[in-house]
């Protein structure tokens, strides 16, 4: 039987120097987090039993197809939505148990950047006010301190001070996304939650913004959670990757390993779908085919069995548990600690 990763190439190249091991306790973590929506026709399990942690100075990637639950997870992490099972914990304490001052600390420490900078910036507010608003609201800084901070964060994202006096509508999409990042940085957060932050941008702009985010990670030890359906971007940005299928974690591991030697057939399929930067690249093993099944009626056993070229009888019957391996974690009947069987 073929291994799902048989044709994937490993390109040796100068790599990002490995970063220091994750320092200290998690800023934000989830414990068996779940969210089910009541819809006509029953319960839709958008997210089930997701356990992960964002630790200082590390970047975690969340990957999966459209509709697999990435945005649902992001909304739960931001307390824009409440879990139906499990919990989101800020520095060891469930969000639902935080006191008012703790909640304020959480709001300051965890900042989102959304996909679309057109809808996320108020068009009639000057950039200065957009960035200063969360700072003024907290009442902890003087006017002069706030003004200085605005200029400082604009410079961190490669914009000049005079940008502060203009309106978002005067800027291109790429510049607006920088403004959105500057706003997120203003409160000196510990963790940025990025939901597809570059997918609506042009290629040259994507590269500029990804580099800025990487600078922020390295220069200020900022932790990031990076949601994307693009494995190439995740490979560049992240240390570790969590792959989600129909709301469940199917694989987790170091980004470099996930993007070259995936264990799970779904990860291998995502990798095959990632567009080649080079037409001469060999075809990959298992192109993803067929539709994502409805999350309202997920397949029995392993939810991926309807599309998996390696499915066996047991896959239709039993749901594979998420197991630890020397390479990370994986939920597949055909992968053991030693590898593919």
């Amino acid at each position, binding site marked *: 039987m073929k291994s799902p990763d048989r044709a994937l*190439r*490993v*390109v*040796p*190249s*100068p*790599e*990002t*120097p490995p970063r220091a091991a994750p320092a200290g306790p998690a800023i934000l973590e989830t414990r068996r987090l779940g969210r089910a929506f009541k819809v006509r026709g029953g319960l839709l399990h958008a997210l089930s039993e997701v356990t992960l942690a964002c630790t200082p100075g590390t970047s975690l990637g969340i990957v999966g*197809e*459209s*509709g697999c639950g990435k945005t649902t997870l992001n909304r739960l992490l931001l307390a824009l939505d409440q879990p139906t099972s499990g919990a989101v914990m800020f520095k060891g304490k469930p969000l639902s148990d935080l006191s008012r001052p703790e909640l304020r600390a959480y709001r300051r420490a965890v900042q989102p950047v959304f996909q679309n900078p057109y809808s996320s910036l108020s068009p009639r507010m000057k950039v200065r006010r957009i960035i200063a608003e969360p700072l003024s609201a907290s009442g902890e800084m003087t006017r002069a301190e706030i003004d200085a901070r605005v200029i400082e964060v604009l410079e961190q994202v490669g914009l000049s001070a005079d940008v502060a006096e203009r309106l978002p509508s005067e800027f*291109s*999409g*790429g510049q607006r996304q920088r403004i959105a990042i500057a706003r997120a940085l203003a409160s000196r957060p510990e963790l940025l939650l990025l939901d597809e932050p570059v997918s609506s941008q*042009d*290629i*040259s*702009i*994507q*590269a*500029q913004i*990804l*580099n800025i985010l*990487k600078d922020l990670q390295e220069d200020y030890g900022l932790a990031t959670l990076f949601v994307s*359906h*693009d*494995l*190439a*971007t995740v*490979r*560049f940005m992240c240390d570790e990757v969590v792959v989600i299928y129909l709301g469940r974690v199917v694989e987790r591991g170091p*980004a*470099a390993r996930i*993007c*070259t030697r995936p264990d799970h057939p779904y990860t291998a*399929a*995502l*990798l*095959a*779908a*990632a*567009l*080649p*930067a*080079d*037409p*001469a*690249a060999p075809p990959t093993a298992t*192109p*993803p*085919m067929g*539709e*994502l099944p409805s999350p309202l009626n997920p397949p029995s056993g392993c939810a991926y069995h309807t599309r998996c070229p390696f499915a066996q009888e047991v896959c239709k019957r039993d749901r594979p548990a998420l197991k630890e391996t020397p390479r990370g974690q994986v939920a597949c009947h055909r992968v053991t600690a030693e590898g593919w069987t």
Partner: protein
Amino acid sequence: MTDPLLSIRDLTVRVGKRADAPSILDKVSLDLMPGETLGLVGESGSGKSTLGMSVLRLTSPTLTAGTTGRIAWKGDDILTMPNRKLRHIRGEEISMILQDPMASLNPVQSIGTQLQEALRRGGKRNLSAAAEAALSEVNIPSPAERLRAFPHQMSGGMRQRIVSAIGLAQDPELLICDEPTTALDATIQYQFLELLKALRAAHHMAMLFITHDFGVVARICDRVAVMYAGRIVETGPVAEIFARPAHPYTKALLASVPSTGHAPHRLPVIEGAPPAVGHRPEGCPFHPRCAAASAHCRQAPPRTELRPGHTLNCWHPQEHPHEIA
């Protein structure tokens, strides 16, 4: 040698009739052979959509009034042909698929009604059976039921396949695709490109494929033309352009794309942004952002043919693979 299906010469599109009005496209020339797929890549605002729309004379009246040059479709100039003939070409010979499938679908009509209307225009009989067959061809599961559905009841990937079924109803000889996969995620994009390849073979179509994504070009195109500020700056066979890009802009764009194969410490970037319409720099329009620019570059660069079919407009072609970027 066969004649090109589509041959564009010195196509200039200005915003209005005046000779000094700013131009969106400046003297664009290209050929498309029968059955060939040509990719048109470039950053947003470089004029890709304007070029695609011009081929069917679908640009706004201001732009149509400012259009000069020649767009020969099987030898006849689209820009000067009578409306009756143009309608025939739009209906039967050239179709278009756009980025936002909702823009091409009528939200209050069922998929079946819209598809049957296109099939009727394409001269098909037995419309309900033909509609079902057309949906199967684009891999829509349970096509008979789907015919009764409305556009909002479908996913983005499914809508894009419905739009393709409608576009193909008339068996076109040329399909113009304007960023049809940009709004789709990686898996759905992959499936849609595979589908287009199968349809292209089955219908013996040529394609003009507009995208800003080199990965898409690698998957589906035979040749590629790179656009910058309303001009084609480099063109050649896809494998050649990927292996040996020689224009500094092409090279820099290719280098800035992240890859699953390796993660550099930082991505090489092109600083700044492309010029707005009316602000195209003199000489080579890329010179303010170009790492290889010299004083020469303030004058219009010559067109050079590096190898058969691989041409570029640049004073300093970067022939050595590692010269810059």
